């Protein structure tokens, strides 16, 4: 059984149909990348999957369960997590406090208000592991707004991973990064264990083809093709509408 | 975190020590010393008078004239029986909580001998409770009109130089039945003072053979009275009795005119609203033909008043209203009581008041009733007239020496 299945999703803003019967299926552990020109509706697609946006019709299944009416904030507890295209962090808090908040979300005591957070040792331990794993240990007391852009992008992913998701939605993890940062981040993404299924939006074709198991092409709100990198590369129609016409814009 | 907090406390401690150094004395051992001073009763001690008035905020138009009256009196009489008079005015901005704070400041910090104040009913009651609990200094209530202060809530330490709701409303009822018409509509502000006036109005109006065909309650702060005016128009009465204090009342009278009711039904006003010169200026000829019941109006003919109006005009370049007179008489009363008591001790001052004090007021001779703690005074019915573009008032009837009932008369509450 597939881990996640999205069927015939339709979404419109005012009169414009942004998503038309968008459909996708994710297998356990796979790295699935969505590509498509600007304005194809990729971020909207992710927002719909995550419940950030409501949509008109279509179904979203997670492990065979229909989840389209589950509020966004509860999807984390079902095993979903996401990052944002634009950095969406707690800028006035330190790196460590950011991580704390992400880990805390899954803890049973997160609504406790008569005991200091610093007395919960498990959260300290887990945050340390996280920081070590992502090589941010020495930056933990720095406020997020004082981090470099690349570091902030990395922190985006770290926050999403703190919830120990089964499925992680990455919205352009390398957008705006310098080439060296992109390389580093790609390496880190590859290190994410296979127990986590990845659904990623990405423009950088090098990143796409070096990480993807499967690729879905979204064009004018329609999922026109889903297949292995080779299949996508070989498809003439894709060459035409994506690599042919749009490649220059996304280089 | 700890370091910052600790450091912060060090700074705080320095600051507070500096501050406290300025405030001498300690709360723990001074309680006994404050009592001594008064008991010695050196007859030449200055008199310290503290007044808590609404000098800003919604009721500034009532508090300020009281202050002017007090100032005027003590300018004319800077000494009482050889004692220097020290006036302290505090502003409560119309808030009883602020008034209570100012009361503590005046008694604890300034050590005043007599407190005056209570521009609004709630403040008068709040101060009354406090003064009655403390039983240290007498309170002269300058405006508050609620009846219970003469009856259930009477306190040896609380006396008023204004008037009571009963004095106004029962005379209004009597006059309306005698002089205007037997069929009346009442419009009153929907709050405690309004209900009290109506409660006192109806029995005396009915006693005179009158019948109330409708009572309209307008919420405080009503800006548009047109709905009520149509309602009054429907009832088609002979008289309209209104009690709407403050800005609302001025609005009402204006709208009463602009909706054409002024010429149809006689307005009887029982809130001493219109004889205030500024209100007349605001509402203009809308008051013409209206009847008002008041304990004072500037055109009153007696010697004291002529002198008083002249002196007030010279000092403030305005015509006095009855709030000024309340303030002026407060000064006169205090001066007389201190003179007779020969002491500043609260208890002795009260015992003089309890014997009954008569003073010559611009509103005619008045007497402090030792039973009800309210003045026995004349009530005047006046009518607005327009002469050469000027609005004046003409006395049409005098009810002499109106005395509060000694106990709660137990009217049906409205």
């Amino acid at each position: 059984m597939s881990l996640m299945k999205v069927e015939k999703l339709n979404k419109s803003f005012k009169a414009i149909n942004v998503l038309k019967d968008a459909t996708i299926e994710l297998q356990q552990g796979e790295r699935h990348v969505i590509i498509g020109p600007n304005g194809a509706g990729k971020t909207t697609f992710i927002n719909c999957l995550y419940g950030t946006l409501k949509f008109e019709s279509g179904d979203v299944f997670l492990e065979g369960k229909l989840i389209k009416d589950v509020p966004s904030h509860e999807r984390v507890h079902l095993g979903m997590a996401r990052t944002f295209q634009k950095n969406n962090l707690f800028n006035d808090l330190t790196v460590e406090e950011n991580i704390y908040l992400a880990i805390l979300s899954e803890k049973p005591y997160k609504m406790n208000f008569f005991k200091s957070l610093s007395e919960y040792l498990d959260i300290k331990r887990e945050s340390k592991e996280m920081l070590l794993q992502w090589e941010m240990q020495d930056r933990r007391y720095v406020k997020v707004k004082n981090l470099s852009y690349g570091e902030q992008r990395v922190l985006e992913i770290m926050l999403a991973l703190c919830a120990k998701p089964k499925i992680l939605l990455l919205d352009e993890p390398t957008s705006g990064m310098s080439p060296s940062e992109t390389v580093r981040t790609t390496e880190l993404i590859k290190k994410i264990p296979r127990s986590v299924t990845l659904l990623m939006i990405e423009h950088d074709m090098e990143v796409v083809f070096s990480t993807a198991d499967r690729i879905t092409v979204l064009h004018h709100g329609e999922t026109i093709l889903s297949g292995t990198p080779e299949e996508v590369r070989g498809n003439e129609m894709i060459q035409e509408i994506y690599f042919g016409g749009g490649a220059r814009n996304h280089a | 975190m700890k370091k910052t907090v600790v450091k912060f406390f060090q700074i705080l401690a320095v600051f507070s020590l500096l501050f406290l150094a300025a405030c001498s004395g300690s709360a723990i051992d001074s309680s006994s010393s404050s009592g001594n001073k008064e008991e010695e009763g050196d007859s030449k001690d200055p008199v310290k008078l503290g007044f808590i008035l609404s000098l800003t905020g919604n009721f500034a138009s009532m508090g300020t004239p009281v202050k002017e009256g007090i100032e005027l009196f003590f300018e004319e009489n800077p000494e009482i029986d050889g004692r220097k008079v020290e006036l302290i005015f505090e502003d409560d901005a119309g808030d009883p909580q602020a008034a209570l704070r100012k009361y503590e400041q005046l008694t604890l910090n300034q050590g005043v001998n007599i407190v005056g104040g209570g521009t609004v009913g709630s403040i008068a009651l709040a101060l009354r409770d406090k003064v009655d609990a403390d039983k240290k200094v007498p309170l002269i209530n300058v405006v508050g009109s609620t009846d219970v202060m003469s009856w259930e809530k009477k306190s040896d330490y609380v006396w008023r130089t204004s008037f009571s709701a009963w004095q106004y409303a029962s005379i209004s009822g009597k006059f309306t039945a005698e002089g205007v018409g037997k069929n009346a509509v009442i419009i009153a502000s929907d709050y405690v003072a309004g209900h009290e006036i109506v409660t006192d109005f109806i029995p005396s109006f009915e006693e005179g053979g009158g019948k109330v065909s409708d009572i309209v309650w307008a919420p405080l702060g009503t800006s548009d009275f047109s709905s009520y005016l149509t309602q009054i128009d429907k009832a088609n009465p002979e008289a309209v009795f209104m009690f709407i204090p403050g800005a609302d009342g001025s609005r009402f009278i204006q709208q009463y005119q602009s909706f054409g009711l002024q010429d149809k039904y006689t307005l009887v006003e029982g809130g001493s609203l219109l004889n205030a010169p500024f209100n007349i200026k605001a509402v203009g000829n809308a008051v013409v033909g209206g009847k008002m019941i008041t304990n004072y109006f500037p055109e009153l003919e007696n010697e004291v008043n002529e002198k008083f109006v002249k002196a007030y005009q010279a000092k403030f370049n305005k015509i006095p209203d009855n709030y000024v007179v309340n303030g002026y008489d407060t000064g006169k009363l205090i001066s007389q009581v201190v003179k007779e008591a020969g002491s500043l001790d609260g208890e002795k001052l009260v015992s003089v008041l309890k014997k009954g004090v008569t003073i010559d007021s611009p509103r005619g001779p008045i007497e402090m009733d030792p039973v009800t703690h309210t003045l026995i005074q004349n009530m005047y019915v006046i009518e607005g007239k327009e002469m050469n573009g000027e609005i004046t008032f003409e006395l049409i009837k005098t009810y002499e020496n109106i005395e509060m009932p000694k106990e709660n008369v137990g009217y049906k509450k409205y």
Partner: protein
Amino acid sequence: MKKSIIVTLLLAVSICALPFVISPFVLFMLTEVLIMAIFAMSLGLIMGFGGLQSLGHSAFFGIGAYTVAVLSQYVTSIYILLPAAIILSGIFALLTGLIAVRNKGIFFLMITLAITQMLFLFFRQSDLWGGADGLGTSVKPNLGFMELVSPLSLFYFAGAFFILSYFVLRLFVNSPLGKGLKGVMENEGRMIALGYNVKKYQIIAYVFAGGLAGLAGGLYIFKTQFASPELFSVHMATTVLIMVFIGGLGTLFGPVIGAGVFIFLQNYISTMTDRWSLIMGLLFIVIVLYNRGGILQLLQIVGKKLMPSKNLLVDKKGATIIELNESGKAK
């Protein structure tokens, strides 16, 4: 927890020592400061830690006050009166919070303002409980074994509740819930994405603050023994707002300093001149223009100059201090 206890003990000692050095009137004023400090802290909690700007916090203060004033006609024990004040204002906070918290920022401010104004009009017009004339009571704090009558005992009574409130609030803001609340203030969208039910956090904080403000209102009645509709007024809500801003937003102790400074300023300036409200308005503007961090931050800067310390930058929770250094560098 340990830190909280130490700080709380320090506070307790200073409060116990104060009456030995001050005059009766200052004692009277300080009692008011302590009560208003509780009120200001409760607003400081939702504003500085929850990001909810309220111009209607006086609603809870007033409800607490009226609860005690009305119930004191039947019972005198503080073990009934004060919990009743807390619970009733908490319930009101829950009901209004469910409507108000659905909107953010300025919307929230406007709704809270409207709700408070509604209560003010209701209590002013009502026939119940004295209406516009207010409701006097003769209640004194009855602890069961003794009744507190003297101003000194009232001061300690208020002081005890102040310390208790401060301690509970410290726990609250450092707890998992408090940290989550701060996260909601910083970035609501991300908190949702992380799996937090942000409205729940805001409502809990709002109810908590409402209950605390109700406690302050209840205590206020023990001091003034008079409840009046003015307790609900926009003016009251503005007053407490300015206390929070004077002291400094985002700190727990800031509102306390703000309450102290404001009450003394108000009292002395309004004695000297009738133009207090003009001065207060200018004070608002000056605070906005020159000193966004409030007095507490100012004191910290002064403190740092007086007693320099090496490891301030490492101080991981001293958020304001680190920020200051950075902005200092930037200049």
